[in-house]
């Protein structure tokens, strides 16, 4: 099982860009990298997924270097409502998605 390592917590301010990096040194060839957002008392919500290089959607960007041993979630211009726990998930290609500890992001006014 691919394990992930993320910072436990991060602080930011409204309007700033936030970058959260996840390490996954033993990622398998057919694994995807997916990021989720979770608010208290809710299930995780899909943010973005990638396999290599860069992926961008309407809420975030995902940067994946060539060796795929890490990935960075980039949230542009965060707001207070982005305060949540963010999980980096590696898997699905191997049908065994496992969660790391997640990063608790707190956005301050």
């Amino acid at each position, binding site marked *: 099982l691919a394990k992930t390592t993320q910072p436990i917590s991060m602080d930011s301010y409204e309007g700033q860009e936030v970058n959260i990096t996840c390490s996954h040194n033993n990622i398998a060839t057919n694994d995807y990298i*997916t990021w989720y957002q979770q608010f208290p*008392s809710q299930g*995780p*919500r*899909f943010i973005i997924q990638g*396999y290599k290089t860069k992926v961008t959607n309407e809420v975030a960007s995902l940067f994946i270097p060539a060796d795929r041993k890490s990935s960075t979630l980039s949230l542009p211009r965060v707001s207070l409502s982005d305060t949540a726990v963010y999980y980096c*998930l590696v898997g699905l290609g191997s*049908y065994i998605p496992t969660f*790391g500890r*997640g990063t608790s992001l707190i956005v301050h006014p």
Partner: protein
Amino acid sequence: SAVISQKPSRDICQRGTSLTIQCQVDSQVTMMFWYRQQPGQSLTLIATANQGSEATYESGFVIDKFPISRPNLTFSTLTVSNMSPEDSSIYLCSVVWVRGQYEQYFGPGTRLTVT
């Protein structure tokens, strides 16, 4: 995206009893997973419940304690048997669609408190 509902949304149970949690999906999906999330912790995978095969349990979880049924492509149940306070947690079901990429969706969770 898939819409997933779980019943019950929460329950308070006495130790030694069992609770069955239902997961209903609005579309047919092959891959389904059950997770547990204890307060302030990350999600822990309990088992994989693909339709047409026996559930596959992760280390630390056994079928006698967490029996799973997957009778069709839109429904599954997880039973927490002979409960103890240590089973107090949020239980979430999750499904995966393969549509070019792997899309995983989660239910709202069932908050279980064992007294």
